[in-house]
């Protein structure tokens, strides 16, 4: 079921321009090296794609959580894609 | 037993065409009237939920009058009489412009027309406004 849903999502996300950010792997607790390999590869892949354009949207929901983040860590990063701008202009 | 009744949305002044689903006298749902020249089969969220206030249990069933800090059910006659007396008193004391009329999106255009007529012709004030204008 997981595989079906993930395969489906993997096809859907690129259609709206969020491709390459989803991956599913089965790694057992005995496969440390595989885990390292997959995570390293994927991290690199994500890094190359640049920051998640949605990060801004969801970074904002912090207030709704009623959680006080450490001041040093509240680094809201703009996405630069114009999505928030577009949203503001609506 | 099952009917579809065309009507006009009462929420704002746009005048979107709606279609009510009625089953055994109960209002089930609201649909946009596809062929209506104003909304062309589209509605806003208020229009889509037009049926809800009709069936709402929160809806007032009769006029209420506050006596000694508590609301009481009263007849229309009593309510209108009370309102008329109060309005009359205020107008006499402070003049017509001390009264404003705020009309509602939940009544029909015709009723809104009547209300502004009431404000201008009966009360004698130009203080008229409507929530859809805000």
């Amino acid at each position, binding site marked *: *079921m997981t*595989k*079906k*849903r993930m*395969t*489906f*999502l993997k*096809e*859907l996300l*690129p*259609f*709206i*321009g*969020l*491709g*390459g950010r989803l991956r599913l792997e*089965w790694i057992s607790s005995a496969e440390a090296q595989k885990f390292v390999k997959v995570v390293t590869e994927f991290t690199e892949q994500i890094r190359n794609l640049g920051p998640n*354009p*949605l990060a801004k*949207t969801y970074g904002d*929901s912090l207030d*709704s959580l009623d959680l006080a983040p450490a001041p040093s860590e509240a680094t809201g990063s703009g996405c630069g*894609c*114009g*999505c928030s701008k*577009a*949203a503001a202009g*609506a | *037993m*099952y*009917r*579809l009744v*065309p009507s006009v949305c009462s929420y704002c002044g746009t005048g979107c*065409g709606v*279609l009510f*689903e009625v*089953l055994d006298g109960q209002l*089930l*749902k609201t*649909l*946009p*009237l*596809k*062929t*209506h020249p104003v909304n062309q*089969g*589209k*509605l*806003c*969220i208020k*229009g*889509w939920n037009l049926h809800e206030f009709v069936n709402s249990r929160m809806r007032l069933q009769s006029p209420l009058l506050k006596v000694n800090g508590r609301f009481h059910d009263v007849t229309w006659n009593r309510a209108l009489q009370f309102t008329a007396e109060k309005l009359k008193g205020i107008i006499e004391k402070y003049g017509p412009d001390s009264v404003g009329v705020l009309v509602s999106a939940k009544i029909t255009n015709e009723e809104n027309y009547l209300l502004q007529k009431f404000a201008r012709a009966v009360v004698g004030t130009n203080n008229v406004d409507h929530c859809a204008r805000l």
Partner: protein
Amino acid sequence: MKDKVRDWLETGKVDLFLGYKQVDGHPLPHAFSKENLAELGELIVSPARYALEKLATEILAIKPALKIGILGRDCNQRAVNVLTVHQQISPGQIQILEVNCCPSPLRKHAACSTLQPQTYGAVKLELGVDNNMSVAQMDQFDQESLYSRWMYEFQKCLKCYGCRDICPVCFCKECSLENNDLVATGGLPPEVPLFHLIRAVHMAGRCVDCGLCEEACPVDIPLRLLYRKVNGIVKDLFGYETGGSHEQPPFSLLGESTPPEAEPHSKAV
């Protein structure tokens, strides 16, 4: 057509028949019954489409003993199939009288009743997504452009829930789109792009491509294109034709219809 409906009502094949009737210049859905057979003279096919199967399903939810006939074409039939798959109606509860309800000789081949493609303004064509495009044409855009175009469309959303309310196969009592834990409610535009993606995912194996959502959308979001993509994936990956049969869609089935490149079973001896 009228004779057939008369026959259906008289023989008790159906207790109620949902067709159309002209009222004050508007073709409106109308319920014909044995009691008012005389009205049958006014039965027409309408160029404007209403989801008669949805109306029928709503009636059946309250009066499950009824049998209801509707005027319908391919998309209505597909919707009835989907509603049957999801147990909202039992097979046979809704009978379809197949007609050419959009007055076009192209019916069998037309994408939908709106045979004239709509035209859109320059801004939308520049920044957004042309509703007339195909999935294949969309694939021509690069990721960045796709993203910004879809976000342009999604942020226009007025959150009227019209796409859901008009949808013949949306039947959930509680809609995920109103679940505060899933999408923040109360704001406008609704959470971009989550709101529309949640709906898109829920349409997988369910959308019958009737196009009513797009017709109902006040801001012309190309919903139909999005759901076509979603169902295209379901078809490519799992070979499932939505609404084509009473078969369960892949996400309602455990295991059996897995993607072609499914994991080989590991065979440690």
